């Protein structure tokens, strides 16, 4: 068949609808499965109120929020710097920050162990000098989340800052605004949508962190067993089995949905932002 013939477009349209449909169904089915289990298995609702689930949820929430805050505090300056400067080796710094995004989190866990483990690069002298150890602590959970999730924020923030016209900042300087004032009053508001998206991504990634946490922080209820670890743990336990895993998954799903809706609501639509 000729690409030029009118039939080509009809075939293309059919393909579009067909493939789009398959894709949509594929995305809906897993959630439908979760929902079906939740309805048919009475234990799922019981388990959502269990103390283990609550402990995992509380731990996951505070560690992921803390990791995200740290990502913002530590990541914003470097994201801004990367967006505004060019220097030899810049692409290497860029790649280094992106690295945890493309690496399996388990690698991040092993890497953390080699640096901050009891016999790690920093961990060993720190242990000897102060007795401080990271492994098996909630701190380790936050560290694992930070390493794996922060790049998502830095990437988004860097892109956000890059999209802000530097001319705006330069003009602000000539209008008497200090660099700090310019950043707060001009650059940040301009990059707000991108920053918000980065924060959500970062938080979601921290919330979902499993591999690095398992390796670096271990798994202990209330201390290091976050939601994803609790799901794995529940799945292994024949007494809870899939019911436990499903109930934890449902909770994660609800939390994620609430957060997404909330951020959609507070993030300015770019077109409307001028009407502040």
């Amino acid at each position: 068949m000729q690409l030029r013939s009118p039939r080509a477009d009809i075939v293309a349209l059919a393909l579009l609808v067909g493939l789009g449909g398959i894709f949509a169904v594929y995305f809906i089915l897993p959630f439908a499965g979760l929902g079906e289990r939740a309805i048919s298995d009475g234990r799922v609702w019981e388990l959502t109120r269990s103390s283990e689930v609550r402990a995992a949820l509380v731990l996951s929430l505070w560690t992921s929020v803390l990791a995200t805050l740290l990502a913002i505090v530590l990541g914003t300056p470097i994201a801004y710097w990367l967006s505004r400067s060019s220097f030899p080796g810049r692409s290497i710094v860029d790649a280094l920050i992106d690295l945890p995004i493309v690496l399996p989190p388990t690698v991040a866990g092993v890497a953390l162990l080699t640096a901050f483990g009891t016999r790690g690069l920093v961990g060993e002298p720190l242990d000897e000098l102060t007795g401080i150890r990271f492994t098996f602590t909630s701190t380790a959970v936050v560290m694992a989340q930070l390493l794996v999730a922060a790049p998502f924020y830095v990437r988004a923030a860097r892109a956000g800052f890059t999209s802000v016209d530097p001319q705006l900042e330069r003009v602000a300087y000539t209008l008497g605004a200090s660099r700090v004032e310019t950043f707060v009053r001009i650059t940040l508001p301009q990059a707000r949508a991108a920053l918000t998206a980065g924060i959500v991504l970062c938080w979601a990634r921290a919330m979902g962190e499993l591999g690095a946490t398992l390796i670096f922080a271990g798994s202990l209820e209330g201390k290091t067993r976050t939601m994803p670890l609790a799901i794995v743990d529940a799945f292994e336990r024949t007494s809870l089995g899939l019911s436990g895993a499903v109930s934890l998954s449902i909770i994660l799903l609800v939390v994620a949905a609430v957060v997404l809706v909330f951020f959609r609501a507070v993030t300015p639509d770019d077109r409307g932002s001028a009407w502040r």
Partner: protein
Amino acid sequence: MMRLRRHSLALVVGLLSVAVVSCGDDGSSDANEGALAGNVVVSAASSLTDAFTELAETFEGIHEGVSIELNFGSSSSLASQIVEGAPAGVFASANQAQMQVVADAGLANDPRVFAQNRIVVVTPADNETVQTFADIAADGVRLVLAGAEVPVGDYARQAIAAADAAEPGFEEAALANLVSEEANVRAVLTKVELGEADAGVVYETDAAISGDAVRVIPIPSEYVSPAVYPIATVGEDPSEVARAFVAYVLSPEGQAILAKYGFSAP
């Protein structure tokens, strides 16, 4: 899809220890007439990793058309997978309880005990904190166990409970030292090898693999009963290959390989 997900889950569960040895051909060659052909998924307890890897290789050497796919994990997670429909042909568990889970679902055919093992305390070679089993309850010891439903974790807790009967308060003190519940025996071992934990409870066979990296401290025999390993084909209509592999594990050749890795005969 289902199977894929399970596999990736098993991969995560067995993070540090799982070695999925997967052989290519889907039993395409049928050289000799009457020869075995086909492939089979063998789900085996983490503690069997090294022994079963060799068993599978030897078995494949004998039967040219056979390919064995090994899936290691904690017995509890393997049992969960099988009950939820994972396509395993053979299940080798590290305790009777997890085999019973599969049997209760009507999926295990005639489980037979094929090996025995013992649990021991391991401690990093250069760490003097723990000298005896009693020391794991000492103040400030960082103790790592497998999860309560993982067989080795279950055995360890049984031993601790038994010691508590002799010395009240031991169990509370020991479990207060618990810093992490790992997904399987190999993860426990790794945490000790790395020096992150002061002590962990693993099988004797696993401790032997670590060699000089860890020091082995026996647990007084009055506190422990031997760990028994049952094996069974899985499903209503087990394949020829699955049955042959189970028979091979129980045969003198199979037993010899298991003995090499420190397992004792049933």
